[in-house]
């Protein structure tokens, strides 16, 4: 980032929009105008996800001093935010500290590209802050500054941006910070402990109205992230092809078309160890090879953006925040397998992702298409967008293909796999959105570079994975971390543990296809094999944190109900079996359970799992079986109430 540019990046993802992001951005534009600033003096840009969705709407400010971050700012504070972004800083603030010896992310990483002053690849979501140490700094003591508590309550009114601001009280930043709190400890304190114990607490009003909203970009939630798929998400304007190009979009596609053979591209992907990020974890390179090596003839490529697991929003983040990265990955995949036609399939429940992708495709078409327009090549790739009609099972690849073809969204038995027979009978490559979005970085940095990311203890899980952290966790949002990290690091260190400091009960991963990892196994690594060994799955990346209040049979019933709703009805075990499983769970939870119910539940769950036609039915019993495995006592307790069966239910024994 050029030091001269001051910039406000306003998160324009779905979560921040729901939190009032659009109103805030409009207020910021108005405040900039009111301050008499030109557009280039303070760039206000809508960007993709800034990660900490639970605190939205998020706004990041870039300036000579580095980046700062605010969350949940009401539109009334827009002028204060504009003033802060202009660098009207308070005396004695953290950003005035001279650069520490080891600034975070000092210097470009090996292989980092720079282009026209824009950093192409940054391992950090935030511009390096030369004035910030990696540790939360302690604000210097300024003897001339009045103590926070000494300020009259009247000064709590929104500060006049032109007026010299009140410095932060030393007591505030020196006070031990709540380890789970993301509020920037160096920021002017919101509710500082009164220095004068006689002063009523009520008078300790915030001096800086922005202070309660300022977040610490060096909190582990951000600091431990390793953005690869999301390296430009939150930095670029997702509606601007030019901005994406400035950040290196389509460079790797150009390189492929002009310098690499399809086989060489596949070699890099194979070397990277990338596996399908949609949940199944099939080796991506192998899949590409399978499609490429089919007998001569047309091929198709498809990006699967039908992300439907409750509590999962990784693909949405990619599609909303950096649509060109997905399109570049898909285009490279098409080149690598010899396809000249492709589809992006997005669920209708993602209107913003659809809007962004539609805009991105239109912008590319306006330039002349992927080949002639972006790469100066006659390569005639065409990519079309398809919007799903709301069926969860359309995330299953054969059902998705039926849906693209205009048919009913129902799966079919495999083999033949889509790699052999897919759209219109042609060999078809289907990859998850996140998988494809990892491709440009892999080609830029090399497969070996990607393969080196991750823990040596987990040889089968290379690279980074995006997770969406939700549920009873303090910090909810999107994290991209190296695979092999202990689950505890993500949930406790980054996520801040359970809200209110309550003990964690379990982490549900993989949605209705996944399982629960109990607190005792929280040191399990984020590894395909290790998670499967516990009866859970790494899954597509949904990570729902469960506190002590969650009753496991109820959780199982929720997911079973989801599968009852989403079963396509084609095969009997899923259509009728999930209904009976849900009814049995109802019985149990409503205290009508009888002896033998648990065995019947397990027997039927085993049957549905073993005999269903597609992955939805086969995995539908997983939440039930995994909670039965780790929390059997809760089920036994539910059964204890009954005994003789009941007239409205099924057999008693």
């Amino acid at each position, binding site marked *: 980032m050029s030091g001269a540019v001051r910039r406000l990046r306003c998160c324009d993802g779905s979560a921040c929009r729901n939190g009032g992001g659009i109103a805030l951005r409009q207020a910021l534009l108005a405040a900039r105008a009111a301050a008499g600033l030109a557009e280039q003096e303070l760039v206000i840009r809508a960007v993709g996800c800034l990660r900490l969705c639970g605190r939205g709407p998020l706004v990041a400010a870039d300036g000579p001093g580095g980046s700062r971050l605010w969350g949940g700012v009401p539109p009334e504070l827009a002028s204060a935010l504009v003033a802060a972004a202009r660098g009207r800083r308070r005396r004695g603030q953290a950003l005035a500290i001279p650069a520490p010896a080891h600034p975070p992310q000092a210097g470009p990483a090996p292989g980092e590209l720079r282009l026209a002053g824009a950093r192409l690849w940054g391992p950090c979501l935030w511009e390096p802050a030369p004035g910030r140490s990696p540790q939360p700094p302690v604000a210097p003591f300024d003897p001339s500054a009045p103590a926070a508590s000494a300020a009259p309550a009247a000064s709590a009114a929104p500060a006049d941006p032109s007026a010299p601001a009140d410095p932060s009280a030393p007591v505030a930043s020196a006070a031990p910070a709540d380890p789970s709190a993301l509020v920037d400890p160096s920021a002017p304190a919101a509710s500082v402990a009164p220095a004068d114990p006689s002063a009523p607490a009520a008078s300790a009003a915030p001096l800086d109205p922005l202070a309660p909203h300022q977040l610490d970009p060096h909190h582990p939630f951000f600091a431990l992230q390793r953005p690869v798929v999301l390296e430009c998400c939150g930095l670029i304007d997702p509606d601007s092809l030019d901005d994406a190009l400035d950040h290196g979009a389509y460079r790797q596609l150009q390189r492929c078309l002009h310098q690499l053979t399809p086989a060489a591209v596949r070699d890099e992907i194979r070397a990277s160890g990338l596996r399908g990020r949609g949940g199944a974890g099939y080796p991506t390179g192998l899949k590409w090879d399978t499609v490429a090596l089919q007998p001569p003839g047309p091929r198709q490529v498809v990006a699967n953006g039908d992300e439907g697991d409750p509590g999962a929003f990784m693909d949405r983040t990619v599609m909303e925040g950096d649509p060109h990265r997905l399109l570049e990955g898909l285009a490279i995949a098409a080149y690598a397998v010899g396809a000249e036609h492709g589809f992006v399939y997005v669920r209708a429940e993602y209107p913003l992702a659809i809007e962004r992708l539609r805009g991105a495709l239109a912008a590319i078409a306006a330039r002349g298409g992927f080949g002639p327009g972006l790469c100066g090549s006659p390569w005639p790739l065409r990519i079309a967008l398809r919007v799903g009609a709301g069926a969860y099972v359309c995330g299953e690849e054969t059902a998705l293909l039926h849906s693209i073809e205009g048919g009913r969204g129902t799966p079919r038995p495999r083999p033949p796999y889509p790699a052999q027979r897919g759209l219109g009978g042609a060999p078809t490559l289907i990859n998850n959105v996140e998988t494809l979005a990892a491709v440009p970085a892999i080609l830029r940095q090399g497969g070996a570079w990607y393969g080196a990311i991750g823990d040596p203890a987990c040889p089968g899980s290379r690279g980074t994975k995006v997770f969406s952290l939700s549920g009873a966790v303090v910090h909810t949002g999107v994290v991209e971390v190296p695979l092999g990290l202990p689950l505890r690091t993500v949930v406790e260190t980054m996520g801040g543990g359970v809200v209110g400091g309550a003990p964690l009960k379990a982490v549900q991963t993989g949605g209705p296809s996944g399982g629960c990892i109990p607190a005792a196994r929280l040191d399990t690594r984020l590894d395909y094999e290790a998670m499967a060994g516990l009866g859970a799955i790494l899954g597509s990346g949904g990570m729902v944190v469960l506190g002590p209040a969650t009753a496991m049979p109820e959780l199982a019933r929720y997911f079973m109900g989801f599968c009852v709703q989403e079963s396509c009805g084609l095969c009997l075990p899923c259509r009728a079996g999930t209904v009976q499983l849900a009814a049995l769970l109802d019985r149990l939870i409503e205290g009508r359970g009888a002896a033998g119910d648990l065995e019947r539940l397990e027997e039927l769950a085993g049957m549905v799992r073993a005999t269903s036609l597609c992955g939805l039915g086969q995995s539908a019993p997983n939440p039930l079986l995994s909670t039965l495995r780790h929390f059997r006592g809760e089920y036994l307790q539910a059964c204890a109430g009954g005994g003789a*069966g009941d*007239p*409205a*239910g*099924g*057999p*008693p*024994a």
Partner: protein
Amino acid sequence: MSPTRQPPKPRLATVWLAGCSGCHMSFLDLDEWLLELAERVEVVYSPLASDAKTYPESVDICLVEGAVANGDNLAMARILRQRTRVVVAFGDCAISANVSGLRNPWADGAGDSAATVLERAYGELAEAEGLAPPDGVVVPRLLERVLPLHAVIPVEVWLPGCPPSPARIRLVLEALLEGERPRLEGPQGLRFG
């Protein structure tokens, strides 16, 4: 009387719940084998061959025809279960509710099909005003749903058929009288409808 005491004969009961009595008619179609059966068992309770008004204690075998459709059926099922060693669900109604259960699809939103059929019978189809549905005192109250026997009590043997053929009834009774578990397999032993 012979000085050596004969072992007591097995005590047989048959019960008629919510069914059409067709299973009992089929039982009667055993014809002359009934005479043999009468030699081998003591019929202690039955709409066919007993005047007993209360279900006796210590019954060895009970054939239960019909589904559980009302409070009396339910009470009877529970009593017979307490006093019987081997309960046989006798015919399709006892096994699946069958025709007796045809009101079940007409349950209202709360899952009560009794209200629907009573309204139909005593309201919509009534020729005269003032007909009140049964109050549950004189006529037993209908259950919300008609249930198979095994939904309310444990059952040892299921003998399907509408009605079960006399041959299969005999197959089951002969096995039970020999102290064996009846083997109902293949088209000879099993048939719904």
